């Protein structure tokens, strides 16, 4: 039993050390996916062919959880004498559980908002969706969005609320777009017949792994209605404006954009401030003055979000992450984590257990010494 515990701990040690070193090349986000939130760590021997070479964080976490659970009964940790140890182990289990829940249910997104702008959604800049916006109704827009995982399969897509079908003819995880024909290295890409894409040359690009670079996902979509083609569109992260498709006098906007998480309330950025220490470039404080408008709960108020003081509202936490555009654009990181209480409970348990254990060791030690 104890050997399994040791095995898990040593695996954790290796994974964390290895993962930390690989952050230099992979960046924090990808490392997290590859090492800590995976069942196995894969090694790509030849492109496209991966073999598992080491257990990943999730797997070890599950094994350790089961192991600790059984240890409690086998070693009878529930007696009064071993109360400290019991608390520590229960605490570690809570940690593992919390970590697991967070990686499954936690959502991180960004809200980048300019001064004066109002938004009721945040975006995950690492994931994209294909949004089809039906502008038929003057009161509201109907949005159908197709997630990245479906686009990747390069299949025919149909949806009861869209009167046509989409054929994903090509999916590029990253590409360079240019209007200069001399740069083109067109290799067997579908021919674009409609939209702005007709004037653009596409060069496939290798996928970026660095945290600060955005992959410009690009897809070629053919729109088909009852067997007849309405043309092929080029959609890309690099094209920020929606492209319009007219179908039976109805206008549909097509756009490839970061995945959006809508909220039942909106935020308006009233003012962004960036203070530095006088005579230096060292930032002293960043702050965003935001107006919160929640019609549903009738909550309308101004909130100041600044370093170490995020806004927590309806299960989401908004904290000041970055800024841009000459200090008129504020970027807030939005975290939604239903398991946020677990670590608090866990560390309370472990700390209490450790202190109990250490104090009883100390008392024992000083008794022995005075004898």
């Amino acid at each position, binding site marked *: 039993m*104890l*050997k399994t*515990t*040791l095995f898990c*701990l*040593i695996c*954790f*040690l290796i994974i*964390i*050390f290895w*993962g*930390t*070193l690989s*952050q*230099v090349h992979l960046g*924090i986000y990808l*490392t*997290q996916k590859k090492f*800590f939130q995976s069942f196995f760590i894969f090694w790509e021997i030849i492109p496209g062919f991966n073999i598992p070479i080491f257990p990943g964080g999730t797997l070890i976490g599950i094994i350790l959880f089961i192991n600790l659970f059984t240890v409690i009964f086998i070693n009878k940790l529930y007696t009064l004498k071993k109360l400290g140890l019991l608390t520590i182990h229960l605490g570690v289990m809570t940690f593992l559980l*919390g*970590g697991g829940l*967070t990686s499954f249910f*936690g959502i*991180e997104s960004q809200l980048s908002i300019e001064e004066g702008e109002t938004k009721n959604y945040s975006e995950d800049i690492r994931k994209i969706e294909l949004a089809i916006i039906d502008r038929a109704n003057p009161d509201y827009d109907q949005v159908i969005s197709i997630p990245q995982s479906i686009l990747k399969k390069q299949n025919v897509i149909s949806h009861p609320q869209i009167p046509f079908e989409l054929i994903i003819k090509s999916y590029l995880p990253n590409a360079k777009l240019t209007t200069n024909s001399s740069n083109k290295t067109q290799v067997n890409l579908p021919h674009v017949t409609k939209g702005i894409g007709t004037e653009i040359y596409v060069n496939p690009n290798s996928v970026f792994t660095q945290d600060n670079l955005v992959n410009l996902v690009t897809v070629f979509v053919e729109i088909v209605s009852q067997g007849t083609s309405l043309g092929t569109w080029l959609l890309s992260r690099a094209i920020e404006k929606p492209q319009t498709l007219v179908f039976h006098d109805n206008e549909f906007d097509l756009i490839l954009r970061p995945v959006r998480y809508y909220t039942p309330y909106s935020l308006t950025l009233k003012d962004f401030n960036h203070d*530095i*220490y*006088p*005579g*230096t470039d*060292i*930032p*002293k*404080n*960043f702050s965003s003055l935001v107006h919160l408008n929640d019609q549903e709960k009738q909550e309308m108020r101004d909130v100041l979000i600044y*370093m*170490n*003081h*995020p806004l*927590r509202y309806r299960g989401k*936490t*908004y*904290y000041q992450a970055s800024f841009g555009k000459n200090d008129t654009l504020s970027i807030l*990181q939005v*975290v939604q*984590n239903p398991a*946020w209480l677990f*670590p*608090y409970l866990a*560390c309370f348990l*472990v*700390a209490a257990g*450790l*202190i109990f*254990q*250490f104090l009883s*060791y100390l008392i024992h*030690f000083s008794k022995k*010494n005075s004898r």
Partner: protein
Amino acid sequence: MKRKLVIISILFMLGFFLLFRISPTDMKSPSLTVKKFATIPVLHNGRIKPLDSVARNTLILIQGKQTIKLNNIKISAIEWLLTVLTQSEKADDYPVFLINNPEVKMLLGIFDLQKKTVSFNDLVPHFETISNQTNSIHKIDKQLRSPYQKEVINLYDRIMLYHRLKNSYFIEGTHSFSKNLLSFEKKIQEMRQFIKETNHQFDTLSEEQKKKIASIDTTVQQYNYIDEMSIIKPLPPLENILSQDWNSMGFGVTEYIPTYNFHPLIQLYTLTFDANVHNQPKIFNQSIDRILAFHQSRSPRIINLAKAEVLFNEAQFFFKSIVLYLLVFLLLCVSWLRWPTPLIKAALFLLIFSFGIHSLGLIFRIVLQGRPPVTNLYSSAIFIGWITVGLGIILEKFYKNRIGIFISSILGFTTLIIAHHLSLSGDTLEMMQAVLDSNFWLSTHVVTVTIGYSSTFVAGFIGLFYVFRGLLSSSLTQAQQKDLYRMAYGIVCFSLLFSFIGTVLGGIWADQSWGRFWGWDPKENGALLIVIWNAIILHARLSGLIRARGFMLCAIFGNNLTSFSWFGVNMLGVGLHSYGFMDKALFWLLLFILSQLTAIGLGLIPKKYWRSELIK
């Protein structure tokens, strides 16, 4: 008994002698008046500090040392600063630019390998080369630059810094500061008169009159340039005492145009500078007194803090501790050969004494900065040293087997040496980055986690002691081995407790400010590695997988993990300002890790080859 007393008293005399004799700033310190000049508070790098600190920090950045040696005469930092500000021609001849890189030396045409420093005037003919090279190097990504390229950039930055320092009060080459100011005043008044006379009709002016106006313009431009260049802001706002909006001399002088009034400090500074140029100590003294009196009446607190900081700079607590820890170590080494009892007693006294000085420095820092002890990498080294020495003294109190003293002296010495090297990157009392600006979390999370680091080192050094003594000498008795094992076990438990609580507090801080408990950031991972490793050691012992020897070897491995998370993660490119030091630090880190691995390898040598008989 008599012999003991004699030895102890000799040691104490030696200790005091060292304290007052050896200090990087020579004890033939600058004359009293310059010392007074040193206490004038100014705003520099976002912080109000005495001119003494400005001088030391800048000189360290340019030269790597706090004093200048010129024809065997030592010049203190503040004397150098005064010369730079008032007689820049003279200062341009001081060899303050440290050049270590042989390729850079070649670039500057220096073929004398003994020559380590050059003066500004020596560099003048090479400016074009240096700036051309800098321009092309700037296009290369920071991480990819070669050591030579980094050195060139570094030299360029230092030249710029020196240039800006020279132009921090008045334009360089000014000979009479009062006259300069007077002529500015006169010209502005003339212009006023002018415009009245001419009734705002520029076109009707004579050629000569137009030229006069143009010359006013250049005078004003000169001060605008000073405002742009200056790194020192000596003029505090007159109304709001708490405000940090201090102004540069250039800004202050041009403020005359709308107000027809000078900030009271401006004229006092011109008097001071003129007196220094013309060697009039009395006037120099008087005008500095008036500057200090002005600050005193404006805000006594600022003056008191500035005075305290000058005292702190001069006392060099940490440097003295380095010397004393070294002395403790030497005493202990001698005690293994001769006069054990009196020498050990003397070593313990001296250790407690140097721990006191170390503590004094730490407390001074806390009070000056108004922050908990650990605010940057530099102060973490000081603090780790302090905790390890403290733990060593406690161990010595319980076990009385010299090991506590031994470990304390080594760790105290090493960590302070590391701190000394870290201090070369500039102001050690620098302002905090926005994210870190929280005294509550700094004092809870950072302090606990640092205590965790320290205790892991203590356990590791107990392991090293065990391996080397047991392997190389037959003097390690079984009772001693039992003691060592118990010490190491206790410290590892202590370390698990503190590293765990520290790491978790960090998580809570992250959750409070960013809404997430854990982000897999390298620094977070580093701390977690230590927690897990301590848990591994304890569980391996429990399962019978390791015994005394295995426990010691595991403790030694803890040194590697701790040094990795303390220093290593900062080298992964997470961004630390001083690349120069970090390159060298990487070498030492790898060397340290290698040495620990070697020690573990030695510890694995079969028991029969050990000179001491090992317990199970």
